[in-house]
């Protein structure tokens, strides 16, 4: 890059720095352009808060999908967050370093297993167990929560580990020197210091759970239904788009893009929360 000179380099770098913004704007533009006009024509509250999704009759209420997305995500968090954070604490504070050296890469390897593989295991192993022992069709809210809970484990564990490790050793040593047990140190000193990083890991896991599509389509059964029990089949916002996009035309297609708009806005809000938490961690350091 000698030919560009120092200023040329700066300009090129600045240009590339706008790639992320332009990508985001482009995505926003295209999705909003396809979906927003529909939302306004159909009515915001009609679209968000009615429960009839019958495209053939021109009824497009996504309330059941919103509720299902919330339940699936909450359920996944109830499984993935405690397991993941507990795992991260154990690995950083209590396990011998050798164990950590083996387990951390293994967990990161799991992050690159395609989500469809998790989904398939859900169909082949989990759904029959649920059908057999708890009843219902097996493909259900419960199955979705468990599979998503497992899928977010790598995200939660690896980011939590990073933020716990970022807490300076001197903090722990100070606490231990004062006669605290290791758990007292962990929970009163280390975790307090690493809190925003752990929160960020959970929020990012949350984002992953809301956004997951293929695995949920495979295990959750996809009924347009406000769930009344964990054994009911449900359809999330993402599943709604991926399931029906291929056959949708006209209004129906716009309504699916509008579902995308809702998802897009929710994710932007969630990420604002997560990135504030992460930045807090940085200023703390």
């Amino acid at each position, binding site marked *: 890059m000698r030919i560009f000179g120092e200023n040329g380099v700066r300009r090129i770098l600045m240009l590339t720095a706008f790639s*992320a913004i332009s990508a985001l704007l482009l995505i926003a533009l295209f999705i909003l352009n396809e979906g927003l006009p529909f939302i306004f024509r159909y009515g915001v509250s009609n679209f968000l808060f009615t429960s009839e999704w019958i495209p053939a009759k021109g009824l497009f209420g996504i309330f059941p999908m919103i509720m299902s997305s919330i339940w699936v995500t909450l359920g996944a968090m109830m499984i993935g967050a405690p397991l993941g954070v507990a795992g991260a604490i154990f690995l950083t504070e209590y396990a011998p370093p050798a164990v950590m050296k083996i387990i951390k890469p293994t967990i990161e390897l*799991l992050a690159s297993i*395609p989500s469809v593989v998790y989904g398939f295991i859900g169909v082949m192993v989990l759904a029959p167990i649920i059908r057999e022992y708890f009843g219902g069709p097996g493909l259900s809210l419960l199955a979705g929560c468990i599979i998503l809970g497992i899928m977010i484990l790598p995200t939660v564990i690896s980011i939590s580990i990073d933020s716990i490790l970022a807490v300076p050793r001197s903090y722990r040593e100070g606490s231990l020197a004062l006669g605290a047990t290791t758990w*007292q140190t962990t929970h009163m000193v280390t975790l307090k210091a690493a809190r925003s990083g752990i929160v960020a890991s959970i929020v990012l896991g949350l984002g992953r759970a809301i956004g997951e599509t293929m695995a949920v389509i495979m295990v959750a059964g996809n009924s347009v239904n406000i769930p009344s029990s964990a054994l009911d089949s449900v359809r999330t916002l993402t599943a709604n788009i991926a399931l029906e996009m291929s056959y949708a035309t006209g209004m129906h297609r716009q309504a699916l893009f509008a579902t995308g708009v809702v998802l897009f806005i929710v994710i932007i809000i969630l990420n604002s929360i997560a*990135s504030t938490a992460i930045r807090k961690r940085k200023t703390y350091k």
Partner: protein
Amino acid sequence: MIISPKNMQRGVVSILTAATAITVLILIFIIFFILEKGLPVLSLNFLTTNPQDMGKSGGIFPTIIGTILLPAIALLIAIPLGIFTSVYLCEYTKETIITKIIRFATDCLAGIPSIIFGLFGYIFFVNTLEMGWSILSGGLTLAVMVLPTIIRTSEEAIRSVPQIYRQVSFSLGASRWQTVKKVVLPNALPGIVTGVMLSIGRSIGETAAVIFTAGSSLRIPTSLFDSVRTMSVHFYILAREGLSNQNAYGTAAALIIAVLIINILAYWTMHRFIAKRN
């Protein structure tokens, strides 16, 4: 009743141990499940022959090509863009409202569900730019998808290079770009490689965005404008449409082993690189 700190300690440690054990067991089960059913299917023949009858029999050769090409294009675009962006953010500018917006946009991009990338890629690359379902459309969509991962991890890595290194370089008369090239980037390499690995993993494992943009043709592509099927998509179609569970497991096993090898290779090269520098 008040639990003594000592008992508390014991209780908590056993709970934590149990939670970790459960996590690790689940994860081991998943890998074991796939490998147990998939390894018997794997053979050189399976990897190098064309699928027959939509993949019900035969091998997975064209999907391996797809699995290599799509992430390759994505990374070819996202790595330079991502690293340059993070170099700019860390080395060439102060914290301003603009850098804050860039970071926020990066974080948002990272959180966008893959199905939205799929929708976007379909209307933008496939339709608006008329690239059709192709390696190029799929690769570009994946590039946008992994860009934030690379920006974030490189930024983190560049920031962790001690300030003193830069000061020494400047004091020896090096320009800012020379410092970045010779001092900062080499030292940040391990972190950058981690980001690249994560991106490879994510783009290999992606299905939703790829089906919408690269299609699912089983033929061997002859140009970047041909449609292609990746191994993940192939697995999804085989398993879900019930074409052949056996070949689905074989594909998944091949995929897991490939990811494992890529990971090991990357860490090995990285360590060699670090050792050589010292």
